[in-house]
């Protein structure tokens, strides 16, 4: 038996919760330069995934990059040069999902932007991208904004249908928060950045706490019983079922937001004004379409389709590739996403894959595979 996915990297960073993961049975693996729990003893990916959808899952996402973007005037105007979203229009304590673009309109990273006030934005970026993101922001708009990374803060995500009741015991104000809003608060003497957001398709929160307070805070959330630690394995299957992109797999610097089926991140005003990196290419794609397009792929049968598997038309011509895929425990079926030639991107299009010498049918499927349960009102 050979498991090519299991490889170790020599020097790995540790989050402030590393020892707690080890103490609580975390099976640690290298991910984006960090030694992270992929699953926990006594649970495993399947149970952790289902526990999150039924109860509440606690995720250590401290490896992700947190930073403040400030300016004498509004830093959003400068940020709009490198993202296609409406940054100046974000109301205080609201959050937007957006993408950082290179000059060709390719995606350098996807990120969350929260407005604190008229001079301050709070950014959360992917762990594996944070160094290049921060360097890119500095290079492109460093003259107009001040970027202040927060390496001394931890980030936790509490996700699932019971996340709200658990969170309300700690922060009573959390219950009334809507999806994609945020708040700054204090707890036990520590400054906390709370947001109603996440990346599992479930209702939930992300909570930024000082690194020195992370262990005590995590233990507090776990003490109520509903929430359990969830590792990276289930984090991946949850986001895949929710149809959410994983950077470096479903998104990369050669892919534009139009190709990535993220047209909605390109704000209407910005389409008219342009003025962001790669705008000409992206506006052209909005008008004329793209060659490739990200879609959901539903395999027939039970064999999971993994990243890199080639997608073929019904006639057997190569028309695309799987960008991420695996087994969806809530869907109780294999699920995948991939890029296909746009002519084959309509939901319901019959495709096939050649897997281990056997041709197997699959279908272009609507995303998400499992309905979102966000707290929208």
């Amino acid at each position, binding site marked *: *038996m*050979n*498991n*090519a*996915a*299991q490889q170790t990297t020599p020097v790995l960073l540790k989050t402030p919760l590393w020892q707690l993961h080890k103490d609580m049975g975390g099976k640690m693996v290298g991910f984006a330069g960090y030694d992270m729990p*992929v*699953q926990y003893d006594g649970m*495993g*990916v*399947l*149970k952790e*995934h289902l526990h999150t959808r039924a109860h509440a899952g606690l995720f250590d996402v401290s490896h992700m990059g947190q930073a403040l973007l400030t300016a004498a005037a509004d830093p959003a105007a400068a940020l709009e040069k490198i993202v296609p979203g409406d940054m100046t229009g974000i109301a205080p304590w609201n959050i937007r999902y957006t993408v950082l673009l290179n000059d060709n309109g390719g995606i350098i990273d996807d990120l969350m932007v929260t407005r604190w006030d008229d001079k301050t934005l709070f950014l959360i970026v992917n762990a594996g991208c944070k160094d290049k993101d921060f360097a890119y922001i500095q290079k492109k708009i460093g003259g107009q904004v001040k970027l202040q990374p927060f390496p001394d803060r931890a980030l936790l995500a509490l996700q699932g249908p019971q996340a709200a009741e658990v969170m309300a015991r700690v922060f009573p104000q959390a219950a009334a928060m809507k999806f994609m809003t945020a708040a700054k608060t204090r707890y036990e003497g520590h400054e906390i950045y709370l947001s109603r957001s996440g990346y599992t398709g479930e209702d939930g929160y992300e909570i930024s706490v000082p690194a020195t307070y992370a262990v005590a805070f995590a233990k507090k959330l776990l003490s109520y019983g509903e929430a359990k630690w969830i590792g990276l*394995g*289930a984090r*991946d*299957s949850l986001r895949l079922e929710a149809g959410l992109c994983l950077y470096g797999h479903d998104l990369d610097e050669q892919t534009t937001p139009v190709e990535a089926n993220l047209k909605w991140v390109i704000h209407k005003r910005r389409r008219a004004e342009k003025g962001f990196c790669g705008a000409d290419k992206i506006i052209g794609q909005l008008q004329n379409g793209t060659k490739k397009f990200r879609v959901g792929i539903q395999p027939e049968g*039970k*064999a*999971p389709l*993994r990243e890199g598997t080639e997608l073929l038309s019904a006639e057997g011509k190569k028309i695309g590739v799987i960008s991420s895929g*695996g*087994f969806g*425990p809530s869907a109780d079926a*294999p699920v995948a996403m991939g890029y296909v030639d746009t002519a084959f991107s309509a939901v319901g299009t019959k495709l096939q894959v050649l897997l*281990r010498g056997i041709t197997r049918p699959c279908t272009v499927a609507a995303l998400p595979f499992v309905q979102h349960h966000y707290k929208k009102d």
Partner: protein
Amino acid sequence: MPKTFFSEDHEYIRIDGNIGTVGISDYAQKALGDVVYVELPKVGAKVKQGEQAGVVESVKSASELYSPLSGEVVEVNAALGTDPAAVNQDPFGKGWFYKIKISNDTEIKSLKDEKSYNTYIQGL
């Protein structure tokens, strides 16, 4: 009395006469995590020692299954199609993969018995 041998790739083969039952070890099922899909060889197929005979997939990843000995497949565990979790729950019982008619006894020399396999995995 059947005797069980192991490969360094963590497949086991339980030999009873000239029939060997193949599966993956308890160590292997733990390392893989929740098995969600298994692909087995066809009855009648000739498998060779150390060559791929099937696939075992967890939620997260796919792993190749190498045959611990050469032979002809005489039976496969079709129940794994609907209950792949048996590989985790009962790797040496309900979680078996396939049975072969062993074609070359001398290959057994390159496998480990239970005691030396246990020593081997302690060193991993």
